């Protein structure tokens, strides 16, 4: 009998094409997703070498970062963005790559459409020139972000040169308290292990609290693995995974699906397999979370006080805290709940799926967004947009005074004109609260969709568990 293996090791071993002596392995990539921002220089590189895309059939493209989320029938005003999108279209046409552009029914954020179309499947290796590729790990795939040089390498060879990662188990046991979502779980995890806490590791999330999450929740969780520095995050596939994938357009169909499920059931960490690092957390310790600083590790419970200098040991940490609080305009030792906000963004590859929109709509139903707040709801894909409209969610958002937009990355990365103005505070369901991430001088508070919706109504950060009784 072979030695017990972790889920990561099983997928890794199955994809090693060639092991160089003392160096990296040539690893096969089952699915390559591309978008307009990180692919043009890779295609130029191929052209300069005069080599074709080796497996266009395993490559799928979409437009998400640079596209406006307003009326798509109008030409794009930003000339650079227009050129970038035209370049992607031309590269896909030239190389025979399927492109889900804005005219397609399947357009959307790359990490939303992969799962939605069944392009993402358990046991696959998947890459994209985008750090949030870790999202697809929710299906028990090994999925990670790569740079443009590596995009070029995968286009040329369908392989990557990689050294194996270390493994980290993050086990969350117990029942998640009321008001606590996958977003709160991952913010809690990052606040515990730090933004560099999982560097060099692939995380496998385990435990009863993780098992209880829907596929959408698991995607939110795995999505932000990169914010802890992890190469990838994964959850072993189970019946929840298979039920989600059944009948998805690119998933195996009929009998082939049943055969695939049998194979996928083997994709779990063997009893006795060892992780390099282990973190064990209790679900009951988690509360609704919010970030207070300028990276996702600076996250806290919504009911707590903004940290003080004395809460940190080293001078460097203290300086970092004070600089962050100065930028965020927060007072140490004061409650974070009640902080005024100007903008609410519900969207991004972290939280723009049906479950997220339903959670936000439930809070916003029959209510009005505070008069000084601008609230954007940006569905993750064209499919989600249709479904949300069919379910009446979009009407709830519009009635509440939100803007209901076309699908894209939008205000998460603020490349497309959807920008938070300098100094403005944004309660955002996205993944990064870096300085200026949502626009120069923007101040980002990362929260779950329900917390963002409640903040929109209140005009300030509130605790989703108690805000209505205090209103």
């Amino acid at each position: 009998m072979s030695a017990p293996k972790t889920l990561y090791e099983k997928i890794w071993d199955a994809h090693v094409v060639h092991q160089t002596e003392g160096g990296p392995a040539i690893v096969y990539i089952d699915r390559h997703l591309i978008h307009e921002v990180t692919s043009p220089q890779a295609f130029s590189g191929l052209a300069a070498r005069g080599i074709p895309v080796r497996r266009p059939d395993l490559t799928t493209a979409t437009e998400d970062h640079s596209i406006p989320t307003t009326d798509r029938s109008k030409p794009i005003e930003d000339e650079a963005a227009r050129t970038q999108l035209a370049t992607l279209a031309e590269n896909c046409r030239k190389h025979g790559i399927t492109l889900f552009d804005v005219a397609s029914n399947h357009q959307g954020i790359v990490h939303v459409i992969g799962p939605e179309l069944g392009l993402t499947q358990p046991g696959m290796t998947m890459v994209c020139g985008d750090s949030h590729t870790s999202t697809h790990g929710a299906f028990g795939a090994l999925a990670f972000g790569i740079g443009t040089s590596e995009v070029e390498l995968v286009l040329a060879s369908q392989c990557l040169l990689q050294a194996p990662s270390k493994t980290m188990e993050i086990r969350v046991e117990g029942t998640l308290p009321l008001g606590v979502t996958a977003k709160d779980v991952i913010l809690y995890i990052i606040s515990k292990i730090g933004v560099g806490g999982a560097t060099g590791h692939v995380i496998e999330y385990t435990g009863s609290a993780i098992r209880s999450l829907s596929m959408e929740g698991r995607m939110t969780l795995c999505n932000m693995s990169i914010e802890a520095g992890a190469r990838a995050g994964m959850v072993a596939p189970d019946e929840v995974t298979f039920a989600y994938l059944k009948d998805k357009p690119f998933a195996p169909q009929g009998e082939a699906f049943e055969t695939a499920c049998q194979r996928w059931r083997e994709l779990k960490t063997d009893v006795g397999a060892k992780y390099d690092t282990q973190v064990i957390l209790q679900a009951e310790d988690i509360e609704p979370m919010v970030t207070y600083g300028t990276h996702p590790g600076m996250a806290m419970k919504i009911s707590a006080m903004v940290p003080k200098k004395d809460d940190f040991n080293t001078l460097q940490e203290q300086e970092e805290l004070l600089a962050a609080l100065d930028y965020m305009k927060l007072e140490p030792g004061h409650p974070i709940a009640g902080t005024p906000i100007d903008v609410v963004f519900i969207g991004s590859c972290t939280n723009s799926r049906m479950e997220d929109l339903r959670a936000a709509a439930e809070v916003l139903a029959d209510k009005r967004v505070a008069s000084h707040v601008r609230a954007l709801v940006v569905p993750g894909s064209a499919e989600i947009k249709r479904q949300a409209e069919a379910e009446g969610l979009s009407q709830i958002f519009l009635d509440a005074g939100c803007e209901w937009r076309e699908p894209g990355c939008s205000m998460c990365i603020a490349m497309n004109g959807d920008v938070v103005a300098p100094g403005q505070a944004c309660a955002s369901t996205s993944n990064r609260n870096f300085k200026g991430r949502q626009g120069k001088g923007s101040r980002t508070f990362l929260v779950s969709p329900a917390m963002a919706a409640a903040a929109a109504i209140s005009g300030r950060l509130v605790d989703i568990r108690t805000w209505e009784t205090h209103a």
Partner: protein
Amino acid sequence: MNAFTTLTATALPFLKDDIDTDQIIPARFLTGTTKAGLGAKLFYDWRYDDQGQIKAESLFDSTRFQGSQILIAGHNFGCGSSREHAPWSLKDFGFRAIIAVSFADIFYNNALKNFLLPIALPEAVVQHLAQTIEQDPSQTITVNLAEQCVTLPNQEQHHFEINAFRKTCLLEGLDDIAFVLAHLPQIEAYEKALGKTAAL
């Protein structure tokens, strides 16, 4: 040829932790389709004011650190997005090596692919180095990749780790794509064995 062997240069101390790639190059400068000219956008919001004028306090534009080819940084340098625009902009600005306490994974890989050498040294060494350079920016640091050795201005020498394969690639200017495509028969055999050949 693009390669890295040795470097003797002055350095710029920027000893901050968790510098993310949105700081290195903000997303609004990612709409291009080439790698050219990104150095002008490097650390844009640190360097330029609201009118697009260089701030007086910008270290990257101060005469004290002019011509520095080595950047000194703190923990977890290059965290966040996978944008290769980060090493492209550092390289285009003139940096050839980064000495930091630690690096984020994707940035580290991206830097190597652009012959921008990431060097991790112990925290105390990096802090002391930054202070020394701050006092006299004309002092030089020497990096010898073959020896995996950094010589500091006080002649103190420090070993650094680098994967042997990556080291060879840097020293000899080797290219991943040529290397992997030389293994095409193995790739094809792998696809054939697992039925992963294209449905024609």
